[in-house]
C-alpha cells in the first residue's frame, strides 16, 4: 500500500506546487501551462492522442518482440560457439555505443523511404536489442557448475540440458533485461519518430513536435505525460511478469 501511496502523495504535491507557481503569474503560459490546461488539452484531443499513442506503442511492441527473439537467439549462438561470439559481439557493442539518434537518419534513408514504419521499428529494435543480448549471454554463462556436472552424470540430453538447466538459469537475467529494453524500445521509437519528422506523422513524438512548432505547450505536456504513462506501464508489466515467473525466489 505504502509503495503506491507514497509516490501518489509526491505526485499530488508536485502538481499542487506547479499549479500554485503558474497561478502566481511568475511564468508565461507558453513556457509552463497550468496542470488544468494540460488536462484540458488531453481531454480535448483524446482521440488523436490515443491513435498516436497506439501507433507508438505498436512500433515499441514490434521492436521489443524482435529484440527478444534476436537477442535470445544470438545469445544461444554465443553459448554454443565461442567463435560466433568472438566474431559478432564487437559489432553488437558498436551498435550499442553509437548514439541511436545518429544512426536513425541513415536507417530512414536505407529502409524508410517507401515504408517509414519499418524504419521506426528497426531504430527502436536497435535501441532495445543489446541489453537483451548482454543479459541473456550472462544468464546462459551463470549455470551452476556442479549442477551442470550432475546433468552430465545423469546422462542428460542436449535438449534436457537446455530446457531444464540453461533456460531456467537465464530466465531471471532475461526478465531483468526486459524491464530495461522495454523502456529503450519506447525511447528508440520516439527518437525515430522525431528524426522521421512529418514522415512519421502518426506517433506521439510527432504530436509533441507538431505542438512545439505551434507553441502549444499544454499539448506538448499532454503528449509527454502519455509517453511517461506508456513507459511506466511497460516497466511494471514486465516487473509483474518477473514477480510471477520468479515466484520461487520469494
Amino acid at each position, binding site marked *: 500500500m505504502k509503495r503506491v501511496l507514497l509516490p501518489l502523495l509526491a505526485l499530488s504535491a508536485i502538481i499542487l506546487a506547479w499549479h500554485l507557481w503558474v497561478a502566481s503569474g511568475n511564468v508565461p503560459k507558453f513556457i509552463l501551462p497550468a496542470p488544468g490546461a494540460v488536462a484540458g488539452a488531453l481531454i480535448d484531443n483524446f482521440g488523436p492522442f490515443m491513435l498516436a499513442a497506439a501507433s507508438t506503442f505498436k512500433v515499441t511492441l514490434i521492436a521489443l518482440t524482435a529484440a527478444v527473439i534476436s537477442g535470445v537467439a544470438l545469445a544461444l549462438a554465443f553459448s554454443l560457439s565461442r567463435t560466433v561470439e568472438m566474431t559478432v559481439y564487437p559489432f553488437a557493442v558498436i551498435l550499442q555505443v553509437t548514439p541511436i539518434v545518429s544512426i536513425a537518419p541513415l536507417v530512414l534513408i536505407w529502409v524508410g523511404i517507401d515504408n517509414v514504419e519499418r524504419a521506426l521499428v528497426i531504430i527502436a529494435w536497435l535501441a532495445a536489442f543489446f541489453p537483451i543480448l548482454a543479459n541473456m549471454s550472462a544468464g546462459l554463462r551463470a549455470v551452476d557448475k556442479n*549442477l551442470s556436472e550432475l546433468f552430465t552424470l545423469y546422462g542428460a540430453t542436449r535438449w534436457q540440458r537446455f530446457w531444464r538447466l540453461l533456460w531456467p538459469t537465464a530466465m531471471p537475467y532475461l526478465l531483468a533485461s526486459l524491464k530495461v529494453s522495454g523502456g529503450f524500445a519506447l525511447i528508440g521509437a520516439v527518437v525515430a519518430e522525431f528524426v522521421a519528422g512529418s514522415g512519421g506523422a502518426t506517433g506521439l513524438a510527432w504530436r509533441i513536435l507538431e505542438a512545439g512548432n505551434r507553441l502549444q505547450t499544454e499539448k506538448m505536456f499532454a503528449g509527454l505525460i502519455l509517453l511517461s504513462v506508456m513507459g511506466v506501464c511497460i516497466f511494471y508489466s514486465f516487473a509483474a511478469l518477473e514477480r510471477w515467473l520468479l515466484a520461487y525466489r520469494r
Partner: protein
Amino acid sequence: MLSATDLHFTYAESDRPVIRGISFDLKAGEIVSLLGPSGCGKSTILRLVAGLLSPESGMITWPAGEKRLSFVFQDAALMPWATVTENVLLPLSLKNTVGESDVEKAHDMLAAVGLEGFDKRYPHKLSGGQRMRVSIARALIAHPELLLLDEPFAALDEILRFQMNEMLLKLRRKQGWSALFVTHSVYEAAYLSDRVFIIKNGTIEGEVKPSLNRDLPSFEQRGSPEFSKAVSRISKLLEARR
C-alpha cells in the same frame, strides 16, 4: 566393487600433475574418506571415478553391468526454480518419464532424510542443512552402488554436521551403498569411515582403519579408545607430511 589402478591426471591449464599414480580398491558397502590439504587432488579423484574427468593413464574398473553412482557436492547444487520433490526426482526424470510411484519414492526418500512435508517447498525457503538433506535424497533416489561426496558438510555447523553424519551412517546401513567421502575434518573422517586415505601431492600417503564398534551409540563411539587412536594416527600421518 571398484578398482582404480595407477591413475594419473594433469589439468589442461597446469603443467603440474594433480594425481600421480593413485591405486585403490573399494569394497561393497564401504565408506572410504579422502583426507588431505586443499589442492592435493581429493576432488579430482572423485571426478575421475565419476567419469567427469578422464585419466591420462591408469584405469578404473567396475563390475559388469550398468554403473550406478551419485554425486553430492559441497554446495547442495539444487535447482532454485524446482520444488524439493522435483529436485529429488532429477536423476529419474532425466532418464524416464516420472510416474506416481517415483513421486512416492521421492517422498519416502525425503522422509528418510528427515524432510517429511517439505516436498512442495522451494530451495530458497530451506536452511543450509535442509538443502544438503535434499541433495542427499536426490543422490540416493536412483539407488546408487557408489556415492561420491565432495565435502558435503563443510559449510554446516558442528551440531548439524554430527546429525548429518548419523543420518549418513543410518542410510548406509539401510541401503548398503559404498561411498568415497572427501573431507577436511580428521574427526569426521575417523567417525564415518571404514578406511581413511591420507592424500599428499596426488598420491595416497597412508591408510588408517578406524574400526569403531558401530553397535555402540554415537557418543560412545566418539569417546572410544578406537576413535582416539584413529584420530591420533590420522593426525600423525598429516603431521608427517609437513
